[in-house]
């Protein structure tokens, strides 16, 4: 999942936590076991503190704990506070035995030296989707295994499109035409999130990457063309000017109540959309510049890591536990329950047969890329530039290429 929700206010505790750093030697109990002896328990830290993820993961975590013969002490903190918590634990040497990280954060944390390469414990990411593997790799070493992944696609309201006699768009031109034709009264043709946050950058990536744009230097004609598409959609009135202040959750709400005929969003919105009575929707890959191009979308999802706790016996147990989360059966079970995609490429066909509604996303994921694949720990800076340029161009502050140049220069 991309960084969830409007994180900001919940992130305030993080501020406090960081300020109090060094004063508080906090952290949970060190569990049973202890140095070298029998490991009887593992401490697990993740950010699935909301349903449905909370109990789906909870069950799987307990199951795997049982399988490797330990009791699990699980702590699930709110998503935006996880990194602050991890940094605090890193400095007070109280990291958990098993740590879940949002995939774009892995390289940042691996760079601190707080994580152990999984190959030390006989694990490997061979057979995993290339982008997923890249996201968990830092300086040539793999630091985590990610059982499931997701991405974003184009959702469309089947009834509205049928009524207007429009087929889901496959190219940028078709997207513009369809969005214009579907805009009527209070309803916009398409909705997306161009908010001043990483979510906004993440939504723009499939357009930018598919057209050959690159985050190492965003001031390129390819990225500018992609940005021009968004600017055109807003200026023509096919998308609301409010996109600059919409989170992905806001976009979903607009689509859900019928204020938008199409939207860019991810599969984690399925449960919320399914609640709406009479909403009939489907998903296709994000439209590409020219027919026949392959869409390159960003990869979401979390990776499971083994922190350097200084106790090899516990770390080995943690590795067994992570291996358990990543068995073929568990990847498929987690992906079905959480409407995501298994990361082992060999599971592709079996999964789409079992869960046909995930076919579109399974296809999207095959060619998707990791956000940190090129820039690693520098990704947050690049993402900030991307959304700043996006907002400048959409609000009319500068033409796309000029806006991108300004942002690239910091």
């Amino acid at each position: 999942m991309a960084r969830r929700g409007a994180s900001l206010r919940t992130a305030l505790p993080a501020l406090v936590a960081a300020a109090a750093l060094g004063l508080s030697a906090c952290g949970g109990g060190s569990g049973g076991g202890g140095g070298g002896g029998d490991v009887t328990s593992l401490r697990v830290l993740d950010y699935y503190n909301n349903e449905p993820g909370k109990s789906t993961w909870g069950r799987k975590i307990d199951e795997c704990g049982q399988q490797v013969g330990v009791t699990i002490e699980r702590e699930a903190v709110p998503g935006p506070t996880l990194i602050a918590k991890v940094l605090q634990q890193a400095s007070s040497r109280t990291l958990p035995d098993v740590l879940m990280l949002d995939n774009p954060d892995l390289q940042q944390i691996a760079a601190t030296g707080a994580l152990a390469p999984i190959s030390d414990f006989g694990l490997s990411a061979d057979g995993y989707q290339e982008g997923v593997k890249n996201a968990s790799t830092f300086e040539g070493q793999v630091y985590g295994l990610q059982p499931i992944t997701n991405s974003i696609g184009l959702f469309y309201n089947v009834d509205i499109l049928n009524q207007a006699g429009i087929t889901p768009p496959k190219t940028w031109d078709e997207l513009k035409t369809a969005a214009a034709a579907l805009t009527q009264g209070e309803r916009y043709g398409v909705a997306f999130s161009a908010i001043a946050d990483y979510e906004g950058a993440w939504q723009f990536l499939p357009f930018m990457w598919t057209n050959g744009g690159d985050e190492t230097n965003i001031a390129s004609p390819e990225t500018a063309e992609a940005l021009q598409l968004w600017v055109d959609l807003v200026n023509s009135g096919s998308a609301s000017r409010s996109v600059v202040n919409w989170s992905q959750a806001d976009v979903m709400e607009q689509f859900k109540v019928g204020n938008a005929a199409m939207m860019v969003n991810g599969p984690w919105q399925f449960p919320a959309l399914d609640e709406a009575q009479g909403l009939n929707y489907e998903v296709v890959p994000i439209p590409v510049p020219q027919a026949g191009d392959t869409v390159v979308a960003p990869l979401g999802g979390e990776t499971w890591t083994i922190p350097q706790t200084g106790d090899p016996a516990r770390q080995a147990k943690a590795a067994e536990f992570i291996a358990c989360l990543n068995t073929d059966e568990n990847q498929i079970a987690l992906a079905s329950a959480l409407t995501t995609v298994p990361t082992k490429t060999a599971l592709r066909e079996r999964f789409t047969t079992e869960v046909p509604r995930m076919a579109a996303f399974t296809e999207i994921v095959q060619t998707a890329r990791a956000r940190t694949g090129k820039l690693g720990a520098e990704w947050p800076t690049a993402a900030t530039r991307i959304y700043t340029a996006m907002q400048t161009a959409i609000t009319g502050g500068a033409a796309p290429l000029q806006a991108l140049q300004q942002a690239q220069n910091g």
Partner: protein
Amino acid sequence: MADGRGPAGVVVAAPDRPTSTDATPAPPRRPAGGWWSPRGRERLLQLGFLVPAVAYLLLFFGYPVVQNALMGFQEYTTRTFYTGEAPWVGLDNYVTVISSNVFGTAMLNTVLFTVGSIAGQFVIGLGIALFFHRRFPLSGVLRSLLLLPWLIPLIVSGAVWRWILDQDNGALNRFLGALGVADDPGWLTSTSLALIAVIGVNIWIGIPFNTTILYGGLQDIPQDLYEAAALDGATGWRAFRHVTWPLLRPVVNVVLVLGVVYTIKVLDIILGLTNGGPANATQTIATQAYHLSFKEFRFGEGAAMGNVLIIISLVFALLYLRANRRALAG
């Protein structure tokens, strides 16, 4: 009251009473007769009362401030948390943040946000305080209702205002539409309006604080002064000009300085409404410091940005102390 001293009993930090922050005592001279004489024991007792306050200040104010000041000169990243290594980089962080494109915008926005918010809060707050100064039926109830914006958690007010100010379906634009204003202004989505909208919401939040303190100040002005002034023919505006305003000045100083210090560091309401967008139109020094530290993990640069804010606040604190001293001396 020509001596210019504040009216007796002003609740908020009466200027002639030292507050705990400036209570650092002169180093105690060794009392005659040694520490165990009755006088010496009294001194020890006095010190004993001071220790908790001083320890608290050092631990919870001194330590973070010093730490933050130091961080501004270090390359402090996520790595530092694990390795403990934070190499000194001199003024590099300051050069980076001050020479970035966003710094000028953020500084200007901070000034506009602070001045705009305080002017609005103070004028409206004073107006309401004067209005409630004359008693009328139900004035007590109304006055307590006025506190509501203050009592609502900022998360809630942020969410509600975001909904009210929404361009397509917001209550404000619906209302304007009904009045015949044709185009829907993008309160939070246009770069020219977003800062104004955010200031407006912050004014709404700050009115109760201003009203409450100014109302308290008004209560302390003796009624007989107005009666005397009325005998001399000063009523209405002239009474305000020559009686209310001069006597309210110390309270006004307090309100304004506290206002600056509260407003300059506002974070939650801006993050909640616009997250600093669109295109940095509502980015302030405070939100940018937050972004650098907690979104980009550049803790050194974030601290440098934060220190800029601390220095500005310090300037205002000094101005406040000087204004007070002059008021006392006058």
